[in-house]
């Protein structure tokens, strides 16, 4: 087994361990009906050990991949996102040790699973570093950011648990709508994973030529049936489906197609779940969060931010500026990724001022935690894939 193979096998082990731990955590919380915390303690401990095994294996993936590539495995979409999944679990482990909260594991681990699955949809072969990335600052800057984001995501996890308990799913309200929207968006990510896996396993490919925004002829390969066509496209693959419509040159219709398929599959999946469970997804979690201490969730939400925020400042702004000064001759250039790091930072600064200055505790804080995670995910997904800039990884 080569180092690279060992590395990807360890990642599989981690994935399976997280999957098992999710259910054991769920069982631990569910099994304790009378508010007795006995079974929660016992099964919680089992689940935590399984999580720990998964995390060590994940760490093993990281180290062996580092050895295989010769550089910190944080240089492209697959590597960064996989590491994000790892720090998310790492953040959970730290907070579990502080607060012993199995319910948090039940929420955070599935999100980590989704993130790892999402990551593996991107090319994962060992890839070389372009000159700008050939420095130790890659490891320093990106690892600090990914750790900070993992911890900040825990704040959202605790916020989500808080909201699942507090929001009344039987009464129509804005809160109910948005909470369900969060659940739906997680299912859409699942839709993306299912659609990508299906079309990649069946080896789908459709080639097109099109006219790009500079007026030159280019070619593109779709890996999903083309719902939307590129600007003035010509199909090269026989028997490929005819796109429904054509887009202007500035839009990458292949990416739009992927998004549409994700929503299509995700929506079907969402309604399947709803029909089978005969309730909203957020309501399915109600029995699991019955015994949750809201005060504790609020505390974890805040604690994660006060650990994550300084780390984020250090990694995403200070280290980033030092490296940018060395590599690009300026510490700040309003590149989209830089701007979104600043937006994330400003957002958490606002969170802290609202919490400490305006007394935004509890539910308001929980919503802010979730919005913060949404901004982080936007910076990871949309800024890398849609808004092109210096940080384009994939």
């Amino acid at each position: 087994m080569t180092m690279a193979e060992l590395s990807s096998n360890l990642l599989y082990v981690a994935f399976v361990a997280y999957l098992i731990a999710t259910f054991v955590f769920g069982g631990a919380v569910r099994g304790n009906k009378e508010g007795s915390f006995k079974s929660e303690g016992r099964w919680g401990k089992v689940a935590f050990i399984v999580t720990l095994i998964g995390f060590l294996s994940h760490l093993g993936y990281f180290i062996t991949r580092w050895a295989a590539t010769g550089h910190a495995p944080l240089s492209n979409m697959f590597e960064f996102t996989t590491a994000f999944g790892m720090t998310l679990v790492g953040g959970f482990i730290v907070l579990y040790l502080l607060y012993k909260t199995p319910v948090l594991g039940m929420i955070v681990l599935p999100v980590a699973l989704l993130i790892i699955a999402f990551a593996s949809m991107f090319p994962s072969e060992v890839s070389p570093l372009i000159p700008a990335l050939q420095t130790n600052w890659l490891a320093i800057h990106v690892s600090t950011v990914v750790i900070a984001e993992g911890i900040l995501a825990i704040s959202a996890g605790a916020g989500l648990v808080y909201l699942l308990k507090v929001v009344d799913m039987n009464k129509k309200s804005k809160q109910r709508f948005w909470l369900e929207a969060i659940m739906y968006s997680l299912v859409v990510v699942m839709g993306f994973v299912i659609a990508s896996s299906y079309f990649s396993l069946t080896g789908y490919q459709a080639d097109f030529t099109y006219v790009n925004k500079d007026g030159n002829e280019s070619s593109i390969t779709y890996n999903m049936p083309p719902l939307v066509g590129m600007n003035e496209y010509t199909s090269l693959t026989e028997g490929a489906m005819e796109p429904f419509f054509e887009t202007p040159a500035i839009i990458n219709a292949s990416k739009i197609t992927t998004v549409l398929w994700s929503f299509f599959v995700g929506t079907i999946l969402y309604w399947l779940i709803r029909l089978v469970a005969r309730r909203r997804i957020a309501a399915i979690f109600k029995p699991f969060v019955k015994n949750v201490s809201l005060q504790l969730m609020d505390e974890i939400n805040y604690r994660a931010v006060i650990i994550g925020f300084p780390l984020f400042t250090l990694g995403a702004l200070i280290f980033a500026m030092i490296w940018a000064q060395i590599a690009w001759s300026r510490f700040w250039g309003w590149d989209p990724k830089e701007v979104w790091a600043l937006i994330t930072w400003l957002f958490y600064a606002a969170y802290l001022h609202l919490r400490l200055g305006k007394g935004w505790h509890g539910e308001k804080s929980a919503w802010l935690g979730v919005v913060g995670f949404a901004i982080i995910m936007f910076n990871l997904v949309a800024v890398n894939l849609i808004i092109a800039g210096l940080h384009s990884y994939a």
Partner: protein
Amino acid sequence: MGKMQCKCGHVNPPGTILCESCGRSLTEEEQNKKLADMRYEGTARRSQTYNKSIIDKIWNFFSSVKVGVSIIVILLIAAAIGTILPQAQYVNVPVRNDATIKAYYADVYGEIGKIYHFLGFHDLYSSAWFILLVGMLAISLIVASLDRFVPLYRSLKNQRVLRHPSFMNKQRIYAEGPAPEDSMQKAEEKLKDLKYKVTLDKNGLLAEKGRFSRWGPYVNHIGLIIFLFGVMLRMMPGFYVDETLWIREGETRAIPDAPGYFLENKNFTMETYTGEGEDAKFEEAIDRVGTVAKNYQTDIVLYQTPEESLPGATDELEEVEEHAIRVNQPLKFDGYAVYQMDFRQNELRAMTFDLTNKETEESLGSLTIDLVSPEKSYDLGNDTRVDLLGYYPDFSGFENGEPQTETPIPNNPGFLVRMFTPETPDGEVSFIVIQNTIEPLGENQYKLTFQNAETRDVSGLTIRKDSTLPILGLGGLIFMIGVAQGMYFNHRRFWIQKQEDGGLVLAGHTNKNWYGLKKDLDQVSEFASLPPYIDQQEEIEKQEKLEKEQKLEGDELS
């Protein structure tokens, strides 16, 4: 509003809520509260006291947290809008000016692009309103900090050990009751063990720990202000140099804005990953994406003119150092840094032609034209010579019969020549561009035949000097210190007083982490047998919850 004298005799500044000295409530509103408002120690904040003059109003505006957060949120949204379409600086246009950039947005992004450009979002981060917003944030940082810091500092400095009972029983952590004779001494001992600073006065005790954490927010705001000040300083001349230097292989050029320094480009290299040997592990990735750059490098020699030489003299250059400038490895000297930013490969350097007879194809000799500094005339001997009448490095066509050049870079050189041979002593005029010869004044006997061309690479270097970097670094450092100071430490205080009847009264306060405070107090209580304490906040919440439930039940019954 006048100064407020407390019953204890202390004179407080107008607007004070809790007496700085004894802690008595000074306002009626405060007196009716169950718990004292300890946020800023009940001090008189300017913004809460005066609201008459324009200055008061401005002060109050900027000192408000609500306003501060609003500015943050507006900045955040504005910054996001700036990422919808690329900023003008990242747009690729052949010739850069307002008109071409405007046209670019309209051509590439259509109607949306036009609106985006019209609203000025293409250059959002240097727009006046964006800078104004940042400026307002800076003012808010300063005003809000001063408004809180000054009175808080005064109050913590003036605080007395003995507090009025009304202050004590309005603290969140409160205890009263009988206690053994030696509890005060034991409490003092234990508190000192726990690293509290203990002060005694008559029958009272004040234990305090981590007061410096109260300054955390103000320290981190100072850090931010220093950072923003550093950024502002960049606009002043002399603090900041940003120049581009295109330098060809073999050339020596003066470094712009670095007087006395010269750079020689020895060699430019660009390497790509081969996918073989050491790079074999990357083969799959290279197959998928095509070429991947491995290295951009300019080997240079840095020279300096001796101090006594005349400005601009280049004949006596002294070598300072040799360096390979690579991405992430700039050349550094005397506060300057030179970066590898760009390159052009295979720029034409010289072209060699043969002067040939068109009929016999016999050559009368060859000439090499240096495309950077061509000569006026090339003598081939035997009464044969070629005069260069005009040189157009980047020939772009004719205008009114005159050849034009678009740029001074030899991308498409054109030569207007007059050829003299023994057969044609009056000379024949010919215009030569790559793969084409025009004979404007009639059929010629001779022509210049292209033989070969020499090329070389050009390095695009950026020269920077940024004297504000230490200031920015200092700002960042202070910010981080302030954040850690305010977030990871907390200010804990206990007041204990012995009553005349021998019982004790105890109050505790912390600015955050009540759990930690209680853990400390548990230890002290156990050791010194203090009366049991209650968390009045929790009591109030419990009470409210109970009332709510009773009300709900009542509603259901009725």
